[in-house]
């Protein structure tokens, strides 16, 4: 079945991403993941690398948009793909496996650093956090997310059908410990401390 072409304006896309609108994110994925993937694979990366870059691109875009006075001075696509290209070059440099000067011939328009104002390192950490969070069992996920939403122990016990507040705290601690240990054993997490803005 041929999918109808979506007609989103750049503003619609930005608002949709910020509000976690699935339809918009689906459009962005369909429209730009292949472009990001092609670029990454042409520059020593894999499709999996491209997926990491794409996620960080979205997170960076959220950072940029949330900055006071943000104004999109180019099309969404140009802006977003440029962010992704920068992120991939940062990752390549961080890995130290490729001489990035060999990529000088690649034309990447410079984004205004003030306009971007993103924390690449923090977003990479967030992506790695999410990668391991997704491996947890459902109860652990709910316990950790409930903590993020500032629910009290009593509320968590009721919502998650756990016998007592003490058990909530005990289980939450074990879940967090498991998650933290998975993250610190991720080789990428340990390399990320050298991650700098490009």
């Amino acid at each position, binding site marked *: 079945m041929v999918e109808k072409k979506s007609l989103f304006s750049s503003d619609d896309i930005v608002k949709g*991403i910020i509000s*976690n609108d*699935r339809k918009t*994110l*689906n459009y962005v*994925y*369909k429209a730009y*993941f292949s472009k990001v993937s092609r670029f990454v694979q042409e520059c020593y990366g894999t499709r999996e690398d491209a*997926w990491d870059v*794409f*996620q960080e691109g*979205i*997170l960076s875009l*959220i950072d940029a948009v949330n900055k006071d006075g943000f104004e999109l001075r180019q099309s969404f696509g140009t802006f977003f793909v440029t962010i992704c290209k920068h992120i991939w070059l940062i990752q390549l440099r961080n890995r130290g496996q490729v001489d990035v000067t060999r990529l000088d011939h690649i034309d990447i328009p410079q984004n205004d650093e003030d306009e971007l104002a993103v924390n690449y390192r*923090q*977003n990479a*950490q*967030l*992506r790695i*956090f*999410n990668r391991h*969070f*997704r491996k*947890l*069992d*459902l109860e652990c*996920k709910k316990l*950790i*997310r409930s*903590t*993020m*939403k500032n629910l009290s122990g009593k509320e968590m016990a009721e919502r998650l059908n756990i016998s007592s507040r003490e058990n909530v705290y005990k289980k939450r*601690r074990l879940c*967090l*410990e498991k*998650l*933290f*240990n998975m*993250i*610190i*054993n991720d080789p990428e*997490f340990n390399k990320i401390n050298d991650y700098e803005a490009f």
Partner: protein
Amino acid sequence: MIMKHFDLFYKFVHGELEESELWEFRKKLSSDPVMASEFEQFNQIIQSNKQVGKLEVLDTLNAIHQQNEQPVLRKLFIGYYKVAAAAAIILLSAAAFWFVQSKNSDANSQLYAAYFTHENSMFTVRSTISNLEQPVIQGIQYYELKDYNAAVEMFEKAPANLLAKLYGGLSYMELEDFDKAKQLFQQIIQHNDNLFIDQSEWYLGLCQLKTNNLDEAKLIFEKISKDNSIYKTKAQKLLTEM
């Protein structure tokens, strides 16, 4: 590698350290570079956990990515249900054959293992596919990928959907959370007007067997044996082994 001081850090950020422990903690942190580095990692992860909005966007993106990375599965899901149904029947037949041939022990868990086979989703969704809610479709895709935690998370978003209850129950069986599985199968049976009662009764019986509720299990299998259920023959055979 494990985070050696996790307990201490955890207590610190939750304000659970006594005054003397707090002083000791700060002193150690300033004199032990390894601990300080670990504490920095701890804080970085804690900061990630606070970015709820961004994490929710990543969840949505990952669901979209997973869906799009499985085009073959989706095609099968939508177009080839008959092939899938045949495959499921062959699998069930093979399981039954294996059962007849095997020297069964009396252990309930062994009986359970012999009869509980992964239910192929495409076998069941043939008549309802076009009306499925998005979380149910995603849940079934996760189920097919054997990511049962993700599957139940999706099914919980469609609490009134009977198909979600059925595959939620099956997912919980795979996760060995039999109490939750039982609840879902019982809800389908109580609804009493749907296509999934045969399966729900059968799997509820298996859950009762696995949890050593033999009387309840026998009652269910006896009912299946008398009804015109698709599991009639299997239930009759199972009863002879109990």
